[in-house]
């Protein structure tokens, strides 16, 4: 069945090139063409898109400067959005309906979360946030791995089952009903792109955050805390 199997189309310098890779190349060409056309014709649309992505990420990622994180998150959003919508075109198949693509994206998120955390806090500082109580360290490792799996399976399951349901309905009633299923799969494609990017931003935020209150308390010295407690107990003098 074309949904689950990944047929190898040809060999390039000894490397087998599967159907998914060819679809990804077509997606790259389409993206570049769209952006080049929009630059000439309607540049404000590109600006709106950029502001939309920045606003979407700034809700979750509460740092002063979003610029280091924006290329990764913006690329994830645009790639997943366009590739989920690619199966509307007759003859093309979404690259994200292949679990290899979604696993690759989730692994990118996994490694970049660790790298951003280490860059912000240093290697031992970042490791220390895993071991607040030291016996929770294995649980933190397991949670990182399970986040990756859930990102993979969420995106893959939504997109592949959308395609499969369209194929099944198409084999029963080919005339009008597949259009309803296709529009539903467009909607879930946009939603899943949004959710993937928001979750990636959330994981980066939790790796990069510095607890401001603790830092300020520690820097101001414990006198402030002691005076505040005395004030609470005995009232202002």
């Amino acid at each position: 069945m074309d949904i689950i199997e990944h047929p190898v189309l040809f060999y390039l310098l000894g490397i087998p090139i599967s159907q998914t890779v060819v679809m990804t190349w077509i997606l790259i060409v389409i993206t570049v063409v769209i952006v080049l056309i929009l630059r000439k014709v309607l540049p404000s649309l590109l600006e709106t898109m950029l502001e939309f992505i920045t606003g979407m990420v700034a809700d979750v990622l509460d740092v002063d400067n979003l610029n280091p994180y924006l290329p990764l998150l913006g690329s994830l959003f645009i790639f997943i959005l366009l590739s989920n919508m690619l199966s509307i075109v007759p003859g093309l198949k979404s690259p994200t309906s292949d679990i290899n693509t979604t696993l690759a994206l989730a692994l990118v998120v996994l490694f970049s979360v660790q790298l951003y955390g280490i860059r912000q806090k240093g290697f031992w500082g970042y490791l220390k946030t895993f071991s607040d109580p030291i016996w929770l360290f294995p649980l933190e490792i397991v949670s990182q791995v399970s986040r990756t799996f859930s990102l993979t399976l969420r995106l893959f399951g939504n997109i592949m089952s959308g395609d499969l349901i369209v194929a099944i309905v198409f084999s029963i009633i080919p005339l009008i009903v597949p259009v309803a299923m296709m529009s539903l799969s467009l909607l879930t494609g946009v939603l899943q792109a949004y959710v993937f990017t928001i979750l990636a931003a959330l994981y980066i935020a939790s790796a990069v955050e510095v607890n401001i209150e603790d830092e300020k308390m520690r820097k101001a010295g414990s006198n402030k805390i002691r005076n505040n407690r005395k004030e609470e107990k005995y009232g202002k003098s």
Partner: protein
Amino acid sequence: MENLEPGTLVTVITIIVAGISIVLGTVVPAIMEGLAAGKALDGIARQPDAAPQIRTTMIISMALLETTAIYVLLIVLVLLFFNPLLERFFGG
């Protein structure tokens, strides 16, 4: 039940199990998503100014709740259409 071939028995049990699991796996997330939407609407009714914030959080929560339903759908689809156990054990 004893004079069925093993391949047929596995197929019958697979069909029954797939039916039960898709029912459970669709109804429970749907009820929980309805509850979540209800609570979100309560929050919007109480504080209309916070509506965009609540709406964003609700959309994210819905997508996360949907995930387990998708997991169940995946398993049921594999069971029904690409059942690996039939080929491995019974050559059927």
